[in-house]
């Protein structure tokens, strides 16, 4: 099975953020929220592939290009950041369930922290492709102003609200605080669709807000993965049995029930990485 992808560009964005551009020469085309498993060494250290979400899918004539936005966080991504144009990468995928972007979802609110913007940007662009004039609102931020990145790019697709934990830029607080602030002051419409990607604690708090304010939402989860295709069972994500969400796109083939049938684990690589915000058992996930 051919799985080499030629590197068209590997660009340093800012700080430790990079963007790599690849031609999508293998089918199927990825959808926002899906991920690829990229080999990030030629030897055995690091050993396992690294999962990266699709950041952008671009059409160029009859062919497609894909961008992966990534943060250098360890040996694997360090190796990746040094690959040059003309080289190639060993990639498997796309894997997993993507975000469900439906006609009636308007406005769309994207909530991210740091590199979490990577798959959400794809949601924004896809949503605009599907319905011109759809309103995209982006809540993005990080610890302090020096760590903010991708602000200008985000302004191209939507209205941006910045936050920093220390208040050095934008709203003083974290993403859920900002969302709560906007909701309490009725600065967001009553009905909207939330899409989120970021740390577990942020997602959990967004889930709490979704219950309190009654908005719908989808989250992209991440965990260490062994394989990415459902064989190793490493990326178990606990779900609330009564809230499991399946539909034409989310089949959830890898659910594992306890003997008593009162607990259920999904696999992020097969049943996720995108979930309904209400179905994840956040307390079990964060414990």
């Amino acid at each position, binding site marked *: *099975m051919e799985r080499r992808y030629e590197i068209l560009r590997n660009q340093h964005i800012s700080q430790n953020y990079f963007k790599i551009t690849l031609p999508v020469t293998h089918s199927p085309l990825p959808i926002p929220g899906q991920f690829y498993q990229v*080999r990030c060494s030629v030897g*055995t*250290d*690091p*050993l*396992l*592939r690294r999962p990266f979400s699709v950041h952008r899918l671009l059409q160029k004539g009859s062919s497609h290009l894909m961008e992966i936005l990534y943060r250098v966080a360890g040996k694997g991504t360090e190796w990746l950041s040094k690959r040059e144009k003309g080289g190639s990468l060993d990639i*498997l995928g796309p894997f997993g369930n993507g975000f469900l972007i439906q006609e009636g979802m308007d406005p769309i609110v994207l909530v991210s922290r740091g590199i979490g913007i990577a798959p959400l940007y794809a949601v924004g662009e896809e949503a605009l492709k599907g319905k011109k004039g759809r309103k995209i609102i982006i809540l993005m931020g990080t610890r302090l102003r020096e760590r903010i990145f991708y602000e200008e790019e985000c302004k191209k697709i939507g209205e941006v609200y910045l936050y920093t934990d220390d208040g050095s830029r934008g709203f003083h607080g974290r993403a859920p605080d900002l969302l709560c602030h906007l909701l309490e002051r009725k600065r967001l419409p009553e009905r909207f669709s939330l899409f989120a990607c970021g740390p577990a604690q942020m997602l959990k708090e967004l889930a709490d807000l979704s219950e309190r304010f009654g908005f719908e939402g989808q989250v992209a989860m991440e*965990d*260490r*993965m*062994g*394989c*990415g*295709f*459902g*064989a*190793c*069972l*490493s*990326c*178990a*994500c*606990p779900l609330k049995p009564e809230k499991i969400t399946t539909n034409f796109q989310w089949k959830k083939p890898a659910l*594992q*029930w*306890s*003997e008593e049938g009162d*607990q*259920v*684990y999904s696999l992020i690589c097969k049943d996720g990485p995108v979930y309904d915000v209400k179905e994840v058992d956040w307390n*079990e*996930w964060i*414990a």
Partner: protein
Amino acid sequence: MSGLPDLSLKLGRLVLKNPVMPASGTFGYGQEYEQFVDLNQLGAVITKTITPKPHLGSFPHRLTEVPSGSLATIGLQNVGIDRFIEDKLPYFEGLQVPLIISIGAETVEDYVDVTKKVDLQKRINGIELNVSCPNVKKGGIHFGVDLEVIRELVTCLRQTTDKTLIIKLSPMVADIRPFAEICQQCGADGITLINAPVGMAIDIETRRSRLGRNITGGLTGPAIRPLAVRWVWWVARTVDIPILGVGGITGAEDALEFIIAGASAVEIGTYNFVDPEALLKTMEGIRTYMARHHVRTLKELIKSLEVS
């Protein structure tokens, strides 16, 4: 030399056309790899461990990476033997590849019960016994570290089935050889060496285990290969039944180390995640090596280590 080298081997009543197969726990229930590999080309498929009842498995955050290895605790997550037979086994009806089921349980009686169910299934050709499971009647100590428990377990299972019976032994003992000898005495058809040694990795910033609440996990991947090769070499001089070598194999060169040390067959584990075609490449590589060294049969290579 004429014709292709002969890679076949006998494992109990089972004849495998080649000695390369996946390690239990890294190949799901088998079907997960159909998108990458023609399963019929493998020596056998070995499933993940199946237990009497469904198992939820370990807490989330089950895997972390260590130098040239993976540290993981899956905690025997599986659908249980009944659902395995109902939902997963039918897939193999359309395939010819020998099917070996890894089984695990918490009591000798439960191991026997699972084995009885497996014995009734024609499509299942063999059993690999996972003895790295906690024995609830002995305070949770693993079956694999108690010689008398192993004797009782293998004796009971041998009486329960004529299917190929392989025992996968744990390296978490001072010496594996007495365990291997007992397995042979009690009628095992083969021994798999080695199951994953237990390890730990700590995030020094949070002072928590990298495996969260699970704390420890099994170390697999190239990091354990020299340990595994040495155990194969030691045990191969102690028993005559075939040894299936496993631990950090990434290709034919690694596999040949195990074979020369004394393994009759090899299992590839963690590296399937990195390269899902590794099994087929390894098989081809062994064939090429044999042709290059004018070796006609696998037998000529097994335990051919020069120690003078």
